[in-house]
C-alpha cells in the first residue's frame, strides 16, 4: 500500500533515468544510510561493528569488484583473492616507505597497483573465454600467492613472513593498528564502501557499463557494433581489480590488523565468487545481499545451537556449517538462479501491484 508510484510523474529525462526513480526507494536508501552511519555506531556493540559489519562491508566491496568483471562484463575470474592481496601488500609497502602520508590515500592508491596487475593478467582474456579464462586467472592466483611468500621485500623481511599493520592517525584519531577503536574503523570502511558503490553504480549505468554489458551478452556482436574489445575488457579488469585491491587493503588495515599470504588464498577467491553468484550476477545490490548471506550466515549458524541449548562440539558445528552452506547454495540456485538481487526485484514488483497478482 505504501509502495506505490501512482502520482509520481517523470517530467524530464534526468528523472526518468534516475537510479532510484520512485520516491519510496529514495526514502528507503536514506533510511538505510542513516542507520548505517548513525544507528549502528550508536548501538556501540563492538561485536556488531567489528566482527559483523566491517568485514561484511569489505567483502561487499570485493564482491562489487568481481561483479563488475564477471557479472557485467562476463569474464569469469578466480583470481580475486590474489588481487586483494596485491592491494594489501601495496598499501603496506607504501605506508612503510612514506609513513607520514594519510593512510586513506594509500588505501586508495594501492587499488591502482592491483589494477595494473589485473590488466597484466587480463591480457589473455581477448583470446580465452568462459571456463578457460577462469583457469587462466588461477595462474594469477597461484603465482601472486607464491610471490607473497617468496619475495621477502614485500613484507619488509619480517621473520614471521607476515605483514603487521602499523599505527596510523588521521586528524589526530588513531585509525589503524591495534589501538584503533572499532567504531572508527567501521565508519571509515563504511564511507569508502558507500562512495565506491556510488561510483560503481554510475559506471555501470553509463557508457562504460553499457559497453561491458554488450561484451558480456555477445562479444563478437559487440565488436561489430564498434566496441573495441581489448580496451573494454582490460578496463573491466582494471576497475574490477581496483575495487578488489582497495577491499584487500581495507581487509588487512582496518579489520585483520595483520596478515599472511594464506589470507589471500584460493578460498578467498571462491568465497567472493559465491557471494556474487548467490547475490546475483550483474547486480550491485546482489553483491551486498550475497556478501551478507555468505559471510553472516556462518556466524549465525555458529551462535544458534548454543542459544537453543544444544551441546554441540565446536568441530561438529564447523562441519555442519559447511554442510548447510553447501545445501543453501544449491537451494538458492534452484529457487532463483538469477540470485537474491532478482528475488528482491520480484518482491518489489509484487508489492507494487499488490493486492493484484499482475
Amino acid at each position, binding site marked *: 500500500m505504501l509502495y506505490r508510484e501512482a502520482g509520481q510523474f517523470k517530467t524530464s529525462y534526468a528523472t526518468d533515468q534516475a537510479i532510484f526513480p520512485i520516491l519510496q526507494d529514495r526514502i528507503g536508501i536514506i533510511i538505510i544510510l542513516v542507520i548505517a552511519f548513525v544507528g549502528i555506531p550508536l548501538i556501540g556493540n563492538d561485536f556488531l561493528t567489528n566482527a559483523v559489519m566491517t568485514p561484511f562491508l569489505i567483502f561487499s566491496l570485493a564482491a562489487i569488484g568481481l561483479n563488475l568483471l564477471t557479472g557485467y562484463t562476463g569474464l569469469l575470474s578466480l583470481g580475486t583473492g590474489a588481487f586483494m592481496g596485491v592491494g594489501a601488500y601495496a598499501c603496506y609497502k607504501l605506508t612503510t616507505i612514506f609513513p607520514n602520508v594519510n593512510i586513506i590515500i594509500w588505501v586508495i592508491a594501492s587499488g591502482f597497483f592491483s589494477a595494473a596487475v589485473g590488466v597484466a593478467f587480463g591480457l589473455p582474456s581477448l583470446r*580465452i573465454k568462459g571456463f*578457460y579464462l577462469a*583457469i587462466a586467472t588461477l*595462474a594469477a592466483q597461484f603465482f601472486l600467492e*607464491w610471490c607473497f611468500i617468496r619475495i621477502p621485500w614485500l613484507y619488509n623481511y619480517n621473520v614471521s613472513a607476515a605483514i603487521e599493520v602499523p599505527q596510523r592517525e588521521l586528524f589526530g584519531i588513531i585509525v589503524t593498528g591495534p589501538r584503533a577503536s572499532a567504531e572508527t574503523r567501521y565508519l571509515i570502511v563504511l564511507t569508502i564502501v558507500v562512495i565506491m558503490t556510488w561510483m560503481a553504480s554510475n559506471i555501470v549505468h553509463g557508457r562504460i557499463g553499457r559497453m561491458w554489458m554488450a561484451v558480456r551478452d555477445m562479444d563478437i556482436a559487440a565488436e561489430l557494433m564498434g566496441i573495441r574489445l581489448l580496451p573494454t575488457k582490460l578496463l573491466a579488469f582494471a576497475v574490477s581489480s581496483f575495487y578488489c585491491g582497495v577491499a584487500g587493503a581495507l581487509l588487512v588495515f582496518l579489520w585483520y590488523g595483520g596478515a599472511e599470504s594464506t589470507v589471500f588464498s584460493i578460498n578467498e577467491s*571462491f568465497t567472493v565468487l559465491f557471494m556474487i553468484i548467490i547475490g546475483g550476477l550483474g547486480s550491485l545490490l546482489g553483491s551486498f545481499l550475497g556478501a551478507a548471506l555468505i559471510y553472516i550466515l556462518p556466524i549465525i549458524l555458529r551462535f544458534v545451537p548454543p542459544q537453543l541449548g544444544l551441546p554441540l562440539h565446536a568441530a561438529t558445528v564447523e562441519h*555442519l556449517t559447511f554442510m548447510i552452506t*553447501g*545445501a*543453501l547454495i544449491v537451494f538458492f540456485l534452484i529457487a532463483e538462479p538469477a540470485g537474491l538481487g532478482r528475488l528482491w526485484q520480484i518482491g518489489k514488483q509484487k508489492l507494487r501491484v499488490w493486492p493484484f497478482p499482475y
Partner: protein
Amino acid sequence: MDILYKIFLDPFVQMVTAPDLLVQTLWEGMVGGVLYALIALGFVLIFKASGVFNFAQGIMVVFAALTLVGLYNAGISAFLALGLTVAVMFALAFAVERVVLRPLINQSDIILFMATFGLTYFLIGFGQFVFGGDPKVMITEQLYLPKGTVTYKALGGIISLQKLDIAAAIIASAMVAGLAVFFSKTRIGRALRAVADSHEAALSVGISLEQIWVIVWFAAGLVALVTGIMWGARSDVSFALDVIALKALPVLILGGLTSIPGAIVGGLIIGVGEKLWEFYWGPLIGGGTDSWFAFVLALVFLLFRPQGLFGERIIERV
C-alpha cells in the same frame, strides 16, 4: 652473462652429466601426471556428457577414499568395504542427478558450475561430520597393492621406482583403455557420446538424459575412487588433497575440456614439466614453484591454442 648461463645452459649440462637424476625426475613427473590425469578424466567425463564443469571432482576423490577407509575401520573386510564404497558412489551420483542437476536443467553453465561448488561444500562438511577431519592411512596392504621399491643400476647411478607407482600407472592405463572401449563399443557408451554432441538430438532419438547423467556421474565416481586409493596410498587420505586436485584444471586446459586422450596427455605433460622445472630451474628463483608452474604453463599455452591440444575447434558466430 652468469644468469643467462644458469638459465639456459646449466640445467641441460646437469641433465646430460647426471642422466640417472633426469630419468628419476621424469619418472616422478610421470607418476604425478598420471594422478592429475585421473582427476582430469573425471572432469572430462562429466563435462562431455552434461556440460557441467564439475568442481566437486576433487572432493569426490577425497570422499571416496574416506568412505573406503572409514568403512574398513568400522570393521568391514577390505573388499566388502570396496564394494560398499562403489555403492555409496552410485547413491551419490543418483542423489546429485535428482537433487542438483534435474531442477537446474537448461540453466547457464556458470549456475551449474556454482551448484557443484555447493556440492563441494556439502561433501566437505558431510565427510568431516561422518568420518572426522583428521588424516587417515589408506588400506594398501589389505587391497593387495604392492609395496616397496625396485632399484636399477643404470646410467651411472641408481634409479629407484616405487612398486606402488608402477601399479598406479598400470591400473590407470587399464582404466583408460576400459573407458575407451566402453565409449566406442557399448550401447550406453554411444548414447553418452550422443548426449555429448547435442542434448536435444539425443532426447529426440529416445535417449534418457537422466539415466545418462546418473551413469556418467557414477563413472566419474568410480574414477574418483581409483584416484583416491592411488593418491591415498602415496600420502595420507586428507582434505588437503582437495587443493591438489585444482592442478587437474590446467591439465584440462592443455588437453581440452572434451577430450579423454587429452586429459591423459595433458596430465603427463603437466606432471613431467612441473617436476623438471622445479628440479632444474626452481632453485634459481627460490623454489616452491610447483604451486603455480602448471597454471602459468596452461596460460601461455592457451594464448596460442585456446581450445587445448585435442579440444573441439571453437567456432563463433553472431
